[in-house]
């Protein structure tokens, strides 16, 4: 492979990786605080894509405002879901909270997918991306919509990191993630923090859907593949680990791009593209369930 092609692939992987990281970040924040995997995360992502589409098509908003509206819409939806469905998980209202959380978010995914299918049909929608055109750097040519979406994803991730580090709410989220009992003793309201984390996680999924949706297509099932990637990413980086989610996203982006290029039988390599990450997921969970970057905890 020539040098320029190599750089092109690496850059491609970086762009895709930033998408993965953005989608996975919300999942990881939610897991950190609530210790549940939100199996409706892909549908939050999908709803974000639709809100973005509507904001542009029906309200005539500019693309950047569309992304903001999508994120805000998902804060509201995420908050409602947390308050009505997720709360019993940590208030001892259900017999088996783990199982309940898995099944209820999976049920929510069925509901949201088919709701959007009923409302808008299976046809792909193609809202305007935040930036059109191509970017040329020397011999490198990258499609502008992808690059812009990736850049926006990086900015969003940075904003979230700052929020988590600098604001009181962000500190509460991190405190509960690290040690819920201690945080509770120190006066952190766990219920409010859970609401916050779920809203923030949902907003990130929504923003990701709004940014990435136009690059591919907005459809009711657009969330299924990205969310499976997000599962891989969070497991790779360690469930609940913020930095792990970011690193995991970047790693998966590169793995997919290069695995596809390096395997000689191209058509087969492409067909299996979505399976590489899954194989990694299984391997990580079996060998090192705390992820590449998580700390091994004593099992008591």
């Amino acid at each position, binding site marked *: 492979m020539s040098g320029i092609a190599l750089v092109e692939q690496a850059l491609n992987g970086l762009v895709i990786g930033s998408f993965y990281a953005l989608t996975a970040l919300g999942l990881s924040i939610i897991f950190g605080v609530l210790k549940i995997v939100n199996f409706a995360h892909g549908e939050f992502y999908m709803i974000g894509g639709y809100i973005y589409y509507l904001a542009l098509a029906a309200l005539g908003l500019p693309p950047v405002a569309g992304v903001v509206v999508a994120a805000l819409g998902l804060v509201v939806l995420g908050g409602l879901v947390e308050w009505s469905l997720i709360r019993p998980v940590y208030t001892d209202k259900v017999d088996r909270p783990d199982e*309940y959380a*898995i*099944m209820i978010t999976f*049920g929510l995914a*069925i509901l*949201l997918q*088919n709701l959007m299918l009923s409302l808008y049909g299976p046809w792909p929608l193609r809202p305007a991306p935040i930036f059109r055109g191509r970017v040329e750097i020397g011999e490198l040519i990258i499609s502008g919509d992808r690059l812009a979406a990736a850049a926006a994803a990086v900015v969003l991730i940075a904003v979230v990191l700052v929020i988590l580090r600098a604001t009181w709410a962000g500190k509460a989220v991190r405190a509960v993630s690290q040690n819920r009992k201690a945080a509770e003793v120190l006066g952190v309201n766990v219920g409010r923090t859970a609401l916050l984390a779920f809203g923030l996680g949902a907003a990130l999924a929504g923003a990701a859907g709004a940014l990435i949706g136009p690059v591919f297509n907005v459809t009711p099932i657009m969330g*299924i593949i990205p969310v499976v990637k997000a599962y891989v990413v969070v497991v790779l980086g360690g469930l609940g680990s913020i930095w792990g989610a970011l690193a995991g996203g970047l790693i998966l982006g590169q793995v997919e791009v290069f695995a596809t290029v390096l395997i000689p039988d191209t058509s087969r390599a492409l*067909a299996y593209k979505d399976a590489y990450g899954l194989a990694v997921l*299984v391997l990580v969970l079996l060998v090192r369930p705390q992820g590449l970057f998580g700390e091994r905890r004593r099992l008591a």
Partner: protein
Amino acid sequence: MTLPTDVRVGLAAAALFVALPFAGLGDYWLYTLTIGFYYAILAASWSLLVGYVGRISFAQAAMSGLGAYTSVMTVLGLGWPVPLALVVGAAIAGALGLFIGWLSLRLHGPYLGLTTIAFAEILRIAVTAEHQWTRGSLGLSAAPLIDGATRPVLYFVALAVLIATVALLWAILRTRIGLFFQAIREDEEGAASLGVQVTLWKVVAFALSTAVAGLGGGLYAHVVGLISPTMMSLQEMGYVLAMAVIGGFHNIIYSALGGVLLQVLLEYLREIGEWRLAIFGLITILILRFAPNGLFGTLAALGAALRGRS
């Protein structure tokens, strides 16, 4: 000795299903019910694992697909008779289930959920990718279950398979093995401290559940005549989950009935299009939240309470 409520409900439903063709139910609805019986097998096998042993799995639809493809390809490639191919399909699905169950022994809750999703998707991707054997997303035509069989005949065969599998599972669950399963669900360490071989039974449950799913998938393939990788998708898994939850996933008979009920409603409500699936999603959520024993479990408890009062 009086029979337990769930058995009486199950027998009543079985009697109804046997009577329906004689009551003049048309081919269209018989076919719908036949597909419903497939989903009932799947839902029952899933609830065995989730409701009794407390092991979550999202691989049930994929395992059904594995059973289906194995069975169809055994007939195509080796020319074996369909009944034998069905057994091969169930055995292969059970063997893979045994392996996955063994690999994922130490994983629980969301970790197990993610692992089974990964296995399910890898399986679906592999079936789609290897199109020289499976014809990929074009789908593979399957030999008929019985040559020249009419719809009522297929209906009765599927019903017989459903009743046989549910009865078998029920009988197993009634022995001490069923008690061990539930002890493991409640507390693995506690069960081990009392001599329950937790590892063994967790693996056995996984294999049993996936073998039944594989059998169901094979049955479906030879009834419908065409299979494609969509039967292994996570959406399909979602419907199985909805069926088991709505019927009552703590009881294999109730979750099986949930499978039939939902499939019939899906056909009956065809005019409202995808709204019916959205509504099923909503009902699933409401049941999980407010009536975790499911429709039939809650009704049975209600009936018992009413009888107790009078």
